[in-house]
């Protein structure tokens, strides 16, 4: 469960929205939508404890460290960093206890799940944006955290990758984890999530996805 009490966030002296009161139940799947610059990513960082709120507070039923896993947007990663995909993914084991045999089995399974087998030894520089995104998602899978925060997990993914990502999100959801997903694709959010928070600078709206998001016109591809 994640509770926000009178939460304000943004640059000092310039809160992005009026104070937000919000309770996300344990085991819920929530989408966060809103235009660019309304503070979706910042809200996620505030919940993750990576950014201080301007006022108010966030509380949750598990300790942040170990209880929460955060998928940041990938552009802050240095693509020239001399590390292989496998080493990046294996960082997800941080703080977990496994024997080395279990580790290598889990790592293989997760790489398989995210269609990354065969790319283990590729340096970051030689990965496509989609492959890197799936690697970050795979790293998140290893953490086993009950609360998952995903900032635009579908960015850089092609159609198959997006389907794969939603498939995993539903699997995590059915395991009883609490998920918060920032996403720009309104049609997908409407289809895949139960509830959304729409962030606007006049005030945030929280409600069932189907009620808050109008059916999106289908894109016709000639």
């Amino acid at each position, binding site marked *: 469960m994640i509770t926000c009490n009178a939460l304000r966030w943004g640059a000092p002296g310039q809160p992005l929205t009026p104070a937000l009161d919000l309770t996300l139940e344990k085991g819920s799947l929530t989408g966060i939508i809103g235009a660019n610059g309304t503070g979706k990513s910042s809200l996620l960082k505030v919940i993750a404890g*990576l950014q201080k709120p301007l006022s108010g507070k966030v509380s949750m039923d598990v300790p942040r460290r170990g209880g929460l896993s*955060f998928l940041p947007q990938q552009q802050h990663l240095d693509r020239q960093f001399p590390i292989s995909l496998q080493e990046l993914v294996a960082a997800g084991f941080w703080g977990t206890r496994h024997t080395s045999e279990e580790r290598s089995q889990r790592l293989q399974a997760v790489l398989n799940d995210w269609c990354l087998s065969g790319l283990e030894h590729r340096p970051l520089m030689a990965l496509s944006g989609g492959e890197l995104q799936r690697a970050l998602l795979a790293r998140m899978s290893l953490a086993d955290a009950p609360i998952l925060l995903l900032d635009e997990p579908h960015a850089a993914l092609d159609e198959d990758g997006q389907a794969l990502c939603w498939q995993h999100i539903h699997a995590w959801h059915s395991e009883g984890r609490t998920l918060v997903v920032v996403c720009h694709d309104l049609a997908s959010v409407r289809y895949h999530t139960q509830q959304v928070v729409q962030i606007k600078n006049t005030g945030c709206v929280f409600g069932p996805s189907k009620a808050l998001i109008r059916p999106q016109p289908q894109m016709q591809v000639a």
Partner: protein
Amino acid sequence: MHLSAHLWLPFHDFVFMRRALIGGLVLACSTAPLGVFLILRRMSLIGDAVAHGILPGAALGFWFAGLSLPALTIGGLGAGLSMAGLAAWITRRTGLREDASLAAIYPISLAAGVLILGLAGKRLDLLHLLFGSALAVDQTTLTGMLWVSGFSLIAMALIYKPLLLDTLDPLFLQTVSCLGPLAHGVFLTLVVLNLVIGFQAIGALMVVGLMMLPAIASRFWSRRLPVLIAVSAVLGCLSVWLGLLLSFYYSLPSGPAIVLVAGAGYLLSVVFGPVHGLLRRPPLLSSQ
């Protein structure tokens, strides 16, 4: 006489050359991982700022205690750490980019150092402080260098994993562990410690060259971090060895000779390095 004898004889015949060599080699090994991580953390300029920052501290130490290793080291360590800290503090409080604060701090430190040396009566040669001399490595300094190198290699091994993650993806490390700031602090302290102990052997400004040039050159040779560190250590050791020989046979100051050899290594890497080098084969289309 054989060429191989020329490569070894000065170190066999002269104790000061042997001390300079051993000191330089251990310094090259312990600065290799520091230089590589400085570049990866986009903190390449910190080394320069700290090296300049050491000057006023070392000069003060000299003024009060004369040419003694502990006084120079403590003065340099205090001043170097406070310069790095001051730059970080100004950056955090004002939001200005760190390179600007660092660039502001070098000239202040350099000028202050020169001024204090002037006040101290010029008994310590400025050129010696800036560019060092192989003759300066006495037994005490060498022992100090061995301790610092050993300590910093062990400390780097201990903080390797958190430092790596803090460099690659600090947001991720922050969500899983509180070790990020600690690793950063230990790392910065090691950088200052190595620069301080190195400046007495090859000079405050030249030791930065020994730290950064092999590290930058190594990026042209591999895409794997452990390999980068190893390549950088090997390049650093070669530079120390060849540089000392050059300085011996042609009566050159040792610091600049070592750094120029490292510089030549860097330029060769730029041209011939297989990873980013100018002459590398163009990547195959299929691998793009």
